[in-house]
């Protein structure tokens, strides 16, 4: 008989090993899936995980894309992981990402066509404020009325999507756009453009911010009292209360922080890779970042690696779509599977598996 025996504390070895195992298991299950779709599984896996980095003709294009896609994922996931650790579930990052982009773009466009060097920093701040404000709605409702933050933050995603549709053909529409929906293109306005810092590296300001945030988050979690309080609340809410942690303050900080980071990610995206506010701006980064946060074990360094890996599956998925005719939804499924395998294997780090009879106590 197989039994589970709770470990006194989670195994560090398995905590590190499970993401790797989950990736391998996903590759195997994904291979079976691709085979079922009538594609060569080995070729599909190679196209997704290897070719974006090392293919002689595509890699030059797709390598920079790795950072472009990983940047927002890491930025959002770091914010989310703080809350997840403390048991505060912000799953509306997609909405905060959209609102950050709208706020930031709006703040910038208000000064069009100024060439001041202050425009871009202003937009970044406005983007962070936009995401923060959108996340404050569930935060305040939770602290004031005890409303479930999961449902409120998610409902606000749909509200944000409608606001996006509204402003892209209204308030922020390009007056010179001949009636097409969508804002002015930031790529053609140097003062507001989020340009690559090194040409052809994919390294734009958002990626740099993401790396800085990873370092800050790491220091905060391991060295700062706030990080200690977050970890304590997640591991034992009761102990946290005795230790004098103010849960209201923690909810406001965690949700606000994740909202601000998601908002910044949205702003960097709209002023850089996306280029403009348009109806289809929302790209699902806010949801994929949830997978990234878990895959990275809610640990900043882990999230950095997980973000890069997830970006790889995005790019590899596009490549597989192009070269093998693999449907784009297959990649979405692939990412979902990854999260499932990871959650399933978590049992190894929290429990010991015992085979054999129960001893008589």
């Amino acid at each position: 008989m197989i039994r589970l025996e709770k470990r006194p504390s989670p195994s560090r070895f398995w905590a590190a090993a499970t993401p790797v195992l989950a990736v391998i298991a996903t590759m195997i299950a994904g291979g079976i899936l691709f085979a079922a779709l009538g594609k060569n599984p080995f070729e599909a896996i190679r196209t997704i995980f290897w070719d974006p980095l090392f293919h002689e003709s595509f890699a030059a294009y797709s390598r920079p894309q790795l950072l472009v896609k990983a940047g927002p994922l890491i930025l959002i996931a770091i914010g989310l992981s703080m809350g997840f650790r403390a048991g505060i579930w912000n799953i509306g990052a997609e909405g905060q990402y959209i609102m950050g982009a709208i706020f930031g773009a709006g703040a910038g466009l208000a000064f069009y066509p100024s060439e001041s060097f202050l425009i871009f920093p202003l937009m970044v701040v406005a983007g962070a404020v936009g995401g923060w404000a959108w996340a404050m709605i569930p935060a305040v409702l939770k602290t004031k009325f005890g409303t479930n933050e999961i449902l409120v933050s998610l409902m606000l995603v749909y509200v944000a999507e409608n606001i996006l549709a509204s402003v892209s053909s209204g308030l922020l529409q390009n007056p010179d756009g001949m009636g097409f929906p969508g804002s002015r293109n930031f790529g053609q306005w140097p003062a507001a453009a989020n340009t690559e810092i090194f040409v052809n590296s994919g390294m734009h300001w958002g990626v740099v911010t993401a790396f800085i945030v990873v370092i800050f988050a790491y220091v905060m979690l391991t060295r700062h009292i706030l990080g200690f309080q977050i970890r304590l609340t997640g591991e034992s809410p009761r102990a946290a209360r005795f230790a004098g942690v103010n849960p209201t303050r923690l909810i406001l900080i965690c949700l606000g922080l994740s909202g601000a980071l998601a908002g910044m990610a949205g702003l960097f995206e709209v002023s850089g890779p996306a280029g403009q506010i348009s109806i289809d701006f929302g790209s699902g980064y806010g949801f994929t970042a949830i997978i990234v946060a878990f895959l990275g074990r809610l640990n900043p360094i882990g999230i950095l690696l997980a973000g890069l890996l997830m970006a790889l599956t995005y790019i590899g998925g596009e490549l597989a779509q192009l070269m093998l005719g693999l449907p784009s939804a297959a990649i979405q499924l692939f990412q979902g599977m990854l999260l499932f395998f990871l959650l399933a294997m978590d049992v190894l780090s929290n429990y010991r598996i015992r085979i054999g009879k129960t001893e008589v106590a």
Partner: protein
Amino acid sequence: MDLSSINPVFLIASLMVAATPILLAALGEMVVEKAGVLNLGVEGMMITGAVCGFIVAVESGSPTLGFICAALGGALLSLLFGVLTQFLLSNQVATGLGLTLFGLGLSALMGQGYIGIKAPEVFRLDIPVISDIPVLGPILFSHDLMVYLSLALVAGVWAGLKYTRAGMILRAVGENHDAAHALGYKVVRIRLMAIAFGGACAGLGGAYLSLIRVPQWTEGMTAGAGWIALALVVFASWKAGRVLLGAYLFGGITVLQLNLQAAGVAIPVEYLSMSPYLITIIVLVIISADKSRAALNAPASLGRSFHASN
């Protein structure tokens, strides 16, 4: 703007149709939560049901078969959640989120050959004399069978939870799984059955969307209906009758805003279409503001993993 084009009788008849998907999903989720499990994957199970039902109905030409397969598909997907949370003791919130993401991807993949096809016609109750009664006819006697089935399910769940032995065991497991275990009830097995029931209901709700309400398959067509169903359970404070009330209230808002859009009211379309979500939030706030009541009704073991120490 022409508000006179909105016919109240037709409005009530169509709100019942609009409410049925979330009513079905919310009922299922209520049973799951009564057993002490929080499954946030309703959206994923709904959309999987929607695509399963649609594919089977198109291929076989039988909507009935479609609904059955939708329920099976939803239940099967929910068992994935069940195995993860009940046997492998994973975090229910995270697993439920994962189920939604997984279901969205799975449905998009399964349904890609079926975009733009029309679903086969569904049998509709149309009794010559009774269905022609003014006012009552269109409201009560002219719907498809699923509407009546959903109403029967409300009564069934209400009575089942309140009066049957199985219902009481289920509630006991949800209130205190350790005590239920000590009494010899199989906590994990009961929870798995509840989860599968919730999945089947969500699948039916999804299929109702793709086969009757829309009736077409589009990617991501549930558009948050599963999350609204989750909110509805909280709104209803875990009572079947109130789930019905909430679902019809919500259906009414949805239909009314669609009618207002069609009537050309001066409010921009985007603001009208975000109104159901905003109203859900407002209702949630009102419900949760009354702390004593919310705490009284929520199953005490909701969302906690059960691990028998021996």
